[in-house]
């Protein structure tokens, strides 16, 4: 197969060997599960339970609000302790409405919806509906509601379903292990998704540094002519959906568009497995595989954790820290975000928990830019980080916006390559946040103006109506007098 080269990219130290040979293990239930109502892109779910309610495993505890949203299900049986705001697994450290579930240890299943008997004869819409009901979101980290992406076949001409098993982030091995251990389920899920999308071809892309995963996936896919498993060259950030599509098809996704616009839909391997579980067994998404790794972790591992388990309980399960970590990261070391505390829960989009030593973090003070241009040559999005950062530093955010800062996907290649250790990604995150905030403010002003206009129109109408009534009374009064005269 021909590969199209992607521009830029870097080759960080992968360190996947810390956990790549550790099979997925289930962890004991923690004392409490903390299930945030928003774990996905879109509108938060609405809680359906309150303190004191008994719930069973797989029971719906929060329903989705709107199309781009996802419901939540109880990962085990137990009693709801409260629904209250708690610190979210988010760099802001702000609170968010969270359902607190105290497991009763029985792990009793609720009555689940029946499996779809002949899914390949079912309507695509039925598959999408089941995926939406199961609360499945993109498990590669972005957590976009999967049912929405499976419905893209209605608006776009699609040709390929790309199952993303690249896992290009260093340290993370959760997808690698899943492909080794649950290959059949993933391939089945991928074929079901292809049916929902109405695409004739499925490509499973795995980075060449995972030979066992490639082998097991190839074996699982050998009876299905439409599915091909492809080893892609090892290069960060090949696992980015846009870049994977570019590498395999040569089609570049335009700025601010989706890969569906070039005929490809990309789903993560773990998402494919979750879809398979929902269709074949009626099981909602209540658990996910999380890589717990890093030099400061005593016994790194791949854990199948219930959604809502506090990060601290996973760390304890891995024997705690061997040395105090310099930094705790939610996700991979390149694109992950700092963890606010060990009390925040694992959510649907949590791919990894890393406890990194000072040596691994390699923190160094920033020094002035020497204009070497390394950042430009490694940027996979074709941006000029040096120029953007200089503009953003002087708060010329609008100019940075025109130069495409919104196309930055925060992969971190520029900051990784920068010999001056400039916090380039932080600059871009700040600029993107500012531009989004400005767009929001502008929308609010426009909305206010619309409301004011509607208000004024209504008042004018009310005045006109009262005048009309007054006029009508004036003309009707003489007639009344006339009738009186007749009587």
């Amino acid at each position, binding site marked *: 197969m021909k590969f199209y080269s992607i521009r830029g990219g870097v080759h960080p130290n992968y360190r996947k060997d810390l956990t790549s040979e550790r099979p997925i293990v289930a962890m004991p239930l923690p004392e409490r599960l903390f299930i945030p109502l928003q774990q996905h892109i879109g509108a938060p779910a609405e809680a359906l339970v309150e303190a004191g309610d008994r719930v069973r495993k797989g029971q719906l505890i929060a329903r989705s609000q709107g199309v781009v949203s996802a419901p939540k299900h109880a990962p085990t049986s137990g009693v709801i302790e409260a629904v209250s705001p708690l610190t979210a697994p988010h760099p802001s450290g702000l609170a968010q409405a969270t359902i607190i579930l105290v497991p009763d240890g029985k792990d009793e299943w609720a009555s689940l919806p029946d499996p779809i008997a002949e899914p390949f004869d079912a309507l695509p819409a039925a598959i999408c509906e089941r995926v939406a009901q199961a609360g499945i979101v993109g498990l590669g980290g972005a957590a976009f509601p999967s049912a929405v992406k499976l419905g893209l076949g209605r608006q776009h001409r699609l040709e390929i379903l790309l199952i993303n098993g690249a896992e290009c982030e260093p340290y993370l091995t959760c997808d690698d292990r899943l492909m080794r251990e649950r290959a059949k389920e993933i391939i089945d899920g991928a074929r079901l998704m292809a049916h929902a999308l109405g695409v004739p071809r499925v490509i499973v892309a795995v980075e060449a540094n995972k030979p066992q995963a490639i082998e097991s996936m190839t074996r699982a896919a050998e009876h299905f002519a439409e599915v091909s498993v492809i080893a892609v060259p090892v290069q960060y950030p090949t696992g980015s959906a846009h870049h994977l599509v570019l590498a395999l098809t040569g089609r570049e996704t335009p700025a601010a568009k989706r890969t569906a616009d070039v005929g490809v839909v990309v789903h993560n391997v773990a998402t494919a497995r979750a879809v398979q579980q929902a269709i074949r067994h009626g099981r909602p998404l209540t658990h996910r595989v999380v890589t717990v790794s890093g030099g400061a972790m005593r016994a790194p591992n791949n854990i199948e954790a219930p959604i809502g388990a506090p990060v601290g309980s996973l760390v304890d399960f891995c024997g705690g820290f061997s040395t105090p970590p310099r930094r705790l990261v939610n996700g991979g070391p390149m694109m992950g975000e700092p963890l606010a505390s060990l009390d925040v829960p694992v959510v649907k989009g949590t791919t990894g928990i890393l406890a990194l030593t000072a040596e691994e973090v390699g923190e160094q003070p920033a020094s002035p830019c020497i204009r070497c241009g390394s950042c430009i040559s490694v940027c996979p999005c074709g941006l000029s980080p040096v120029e953007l950062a200089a503009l953003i530093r002087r708060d010329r955010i609008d100019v940075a916006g025109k130069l495409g800062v919104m196309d930055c996907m925060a992969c971190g290649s520029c900051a990784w390559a920068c010999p001056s250790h400039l916090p380039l990604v932080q600059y871009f995150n700040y600029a993107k946040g500012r531009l989004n905030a*400005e767009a929001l403010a502008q929308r*609010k002003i426009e909305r*206010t103006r619309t409301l004011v206009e509607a208000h004024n129109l209504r008042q004018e109408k009310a005045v006109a109506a009262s005048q009309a009534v007054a006029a009508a009374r004036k003309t009707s009064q003489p007639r009344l007098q006339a009738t009186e005269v007749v009587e």
Partner: protein
Amino acid sequence: MLIDVGSLTIMGVALGGLLGTAARFLAVEEDPLEEELKAMLPGSQCGQCGHVGCAQAAAALARGEAPVTLCPPGGKAVAEALAKKLGISADLSEHTEKAAEFAYIDEDLCIGCTRCLKECSVDAILGANKLMHTVIAEACHGCGKCALVCPTEGIVMRPLPQTIALWHWPKPDISH
């Protein structure tokens, strides 16, 4: 010599007369800049800038008598747009933006007088005579007119809560 002076005088009088008539008959009723500026303001006539309404504020802006930062509900977005329109390079880094607020009705104090209802220019207050009122927080733009007319001081302006959806990364703090 006489002809030169005469012809110039005649030309001067004729052209001057023409310009004078044109100025009278082709006069623009309103400053077009004023209209454009008015369209940029939220138009809720809240009066927080000290002018009677947005039209008056736009007029003051066009005359250069008011700063571009005059509109609290419009915030930084409006200030920047106005500065761009007027060709002023306003230093907005010094401009401390008033934190976005929304009106909140204390239900124990509300007597259902409907005064705030009549004052609200965006119909963000819901209620009826002798019935509890409440504010639709998403529609409220924080002008605070309702709080001024409330006879029981039952309306307070609260800052909009910081949420994850609105949060963004701060600017990196390095010197170079």
